């Protein structure tokens, strides 16, 4: 297993280099970090020239890429091109915020999806099954931004009509909250629901399909024939095997979502990875974009690896060399 892990990590390194060079090139070609500065009336041209020389903005892209590599590896992703602000403090802050949001959303989604998937499979073609199949398709089809906006409007209308604040529609916390944890939950609830809806829809379908395959298999039929009660058959014999596809999907999804739920964070004005990425991309500063990319890439590679390891744990027939 260790050899397998090391080999996977080593394979990832050239992939990361290639991805980083491509993204750096695209961002550097497509945007100008000085664009907003140039637009200011009476902006000082000496300052602009100084920044251009200091940050090597007129050098060829491969040369600029090398400067970035040097900064990223020796100085925690370096500093922004304009303003020379260290990148790591902002990036670590937004990572923590996104982690709170995503982990809460995924935990909620997994709990609900497992329950819905198992019950739907065990009670196939029941009213519950049909209802949650419909819900799943609705959840998959609903645009995230629309759901986010509708929830905001709903919550605000409840507040205006009944003077009851259930949840907040923006930011991560209030100005001076009495109870920090409760306040944080009230701020995160809506974005967690938005992310969880799509995830529940997806995961519950996987869970249901996997359960149906497993509970109709020979060994489960044998377990029933032996006289075991239905709950033992489902939870002890079928459930663990049905978890395998879901575990794989969740691990892969988690890697991507930790890069930031861009739309959700934008709508709810959450200071997370997604908003960080969009803001810096629009401003045309490649250094923070690259830092975001590297973190996201590492997480995707890591969670791909986790998916394989979990798969091997859940299915003892799988062995890695």
């Amino acid at each position, binding site marked *: 297993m260790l050899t397998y892990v090391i080999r996977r990590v080593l394979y990832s390194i050239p992939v990361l280099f290639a991805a980083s060079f491509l993204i750096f090139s695209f961002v550097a070609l497509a*945007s*100008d970090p000085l664009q907003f500065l140039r637009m200011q009336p009476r902006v000082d041209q000496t*300052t602009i020239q100084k920044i251009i020389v200091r940050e090597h903005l007129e050098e060829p892209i491969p040369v600029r890429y090398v400067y970035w590599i040097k900064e990223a590896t020796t100085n925690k992703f370096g500093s922004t091109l304009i303003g020379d602000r260290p990148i790591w403090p902002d990036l670590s802050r937004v990572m923590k915020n996104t982690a709170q949001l995503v982990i809460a959303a995924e935990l909620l989604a997994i709990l609900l999806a497992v329950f819905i998937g198992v019950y739907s499979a065990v009670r196939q073609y029941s009213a519950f099954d049909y209802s949650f199949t419909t819900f799943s398709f609705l959840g998959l089809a609903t645009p995230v931004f629309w759901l986010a906006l509708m929830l*905001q409007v709903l919550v605000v209308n409840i507040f205006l009509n009944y003077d009851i*604040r259930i949840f907040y529609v923006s*930011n991560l916390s209030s100005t001076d909250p009495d109870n920090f944890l409760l306040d944080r939950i009230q701020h995160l609830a809506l974005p967690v629901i938005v992310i969880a809806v799509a995830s529940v829809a997806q995961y519950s379908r996987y869970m249901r399909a996997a359960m149906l395959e497993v509970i109709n298999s020979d060994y489960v039929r044998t377990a029933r024939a032996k006289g075991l009660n239905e709950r033992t058959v489902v939870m002890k014999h079928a459930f663990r095997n049905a978890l395998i596809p879901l575990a794989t999907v969740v691990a892969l999804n988690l890697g991507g979502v930790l890069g930031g739920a861009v739309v959700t964070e934008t709508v*709810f004005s959450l200071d997370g990875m997604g908003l960080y990425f969009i803001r810096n991309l629009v401003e045309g500063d490649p250094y923070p974009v690259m830092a975001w990319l590297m973190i996201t890439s590492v997480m995707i590679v890591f969670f791909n690896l986790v998916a394989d390891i979990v798969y091997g744990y859940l299915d003892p027939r799988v062995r890695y060399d």
Partner: protein
Amino acid sequence: MRKRSFWLALAALAAVVTMTAGGATAGSPQGALKPAAAGGTVILGADQEPKILNPFLTDGNLYWLSVIVGQVFEGSYELNNDGDYVKEMITDAAVTSNPFTVTYKLKPGLKWSDGTAITSKDYVSTLTTIMNKNWDITSRAGYEEIQRVQTPNALTARVVFKKPFAAWKDLFGALIPAHKVKGQNFNNTWANSIDISSGPFKFERWQKGSQLVLSKNTNYKSGQQAKINQVVFRFIPDTNTQFQAMRGGEVDMIAPQPQLQIADIKKQAGIKVQSGPEFAWEHLDIQLGNKGHLALRQPYVRQALVTGINRGQIAEALYKEIAPGLPVLRNAIFKPFEKSKYQAHAWQPFGFSQKKAISLLRAKGCTGGPATPSSKNTDIYSCPGVGKLSFRFFSTAGNQLRSLAFQIMQKQLKSVGIELVNRFRTGVFSVLPTGDWDLFLFTWIGSPDPSGSVEIHKCKGDQNYNAYCNNKVTKLLDASQNEVDPTKRVALMNEADKLMAKDLPTLPLFARPGFLISKSSVGNVLKNPTSEGPTWNSELWTVAK
């Protein structure tokens, strides 16, 4: 055992949900917020978060930062809600000639928040800091014209210029404290906090990504002490969310860009909406450089283009709900509400006339287009030597009002055989300085001092992105920079505007209206049309309990 743990887990989940729902609080619209302390707190929704807190550096060049630090750093003049310069920390500013000199007299007894006296030495430190080439200063405009600053006494600063400088009131708008910056690396000063203040508020804390808090400066002597205790800026970049936060009472005030949602929020009880024109003008720039369409370099094509656009209809369609009666702009430099300066010039010499637009094209041998205007027309004119009249139209994606303006113009011009091709995108302003566009719809944000227009319209000006060059216009604009007589200066600029109206390098549309939306419980909130922003008189705000 397993059955019990399953039900225990379900019970725990139910408890969490109940706790969350039970956290719903009834009562005041502030919900879970702490009741306001004596004096109260006002929360503003800001759509941009600063990157640093130093407004002089390139990274601090952001509208919302100027709004925030405007209440922390004061200077010689501020702009009031009529767009007039009002003395802030000075009692007088005497102007003399030969050489052109402005002598500032500071109010006696002024102190920085740390108790240090504010003196004329702070004028010197402001100049030397800004002119220091080691620092990444955004703009040195005006300060480069200063020869020296003399300090005959602690309350007098005599600023001697190399030559007359018309926009002198814009200088020293925020003083830099001499005792704080001496020997310091200014590029690193006030990056994440500000440890000094000369205004009614001082910096308290900044939770990056969330909010910035200013608290009352008890050492403030230049004017009235603040009545409220705190001003909080909550960063909400998404406009729809800003409106929902305003409706839901999460913020007390927002200053959004013109949006159609304003019409709805106006109807909500307990909310006050102020609107009015600002020193910002929406306009359609026409590219005259090499990377633009060849046809646009022909005056008759530009005339046909502007004659085929009904600006009044656009203003009506965009703003009838939120700013009814918005007048069309007939001057690229001054706005209609600047009554003593505004002169209407013939930017649309034939008015709006689709028939005239077609006849202008046909008179020059253009073919392939409609003989008469028709809303069903699909034919596009081609003109001799310049090709098909199909123009790339750039503007900001995601802006409802701009999209609507484009759709209206596209339809109007299609009726006369001119095609507009949508090139709306995010980050569109990276395209503007390249000149690789044909038509560009955007807003210039200016100030009561019109000197910013000089670089936009003069030959090879720093903000002249459409490659317009008329030497007569340039001479007039350059002369205006050194004309200190306000009447003569306005005359020079209006003369330049009259000439530009003949050349048609741009089509002014309207002075963009600004909006300030606040809770009725916050008193003395007055909209300011300048870059001072909504906090210009925050020391007068009150919060009803």
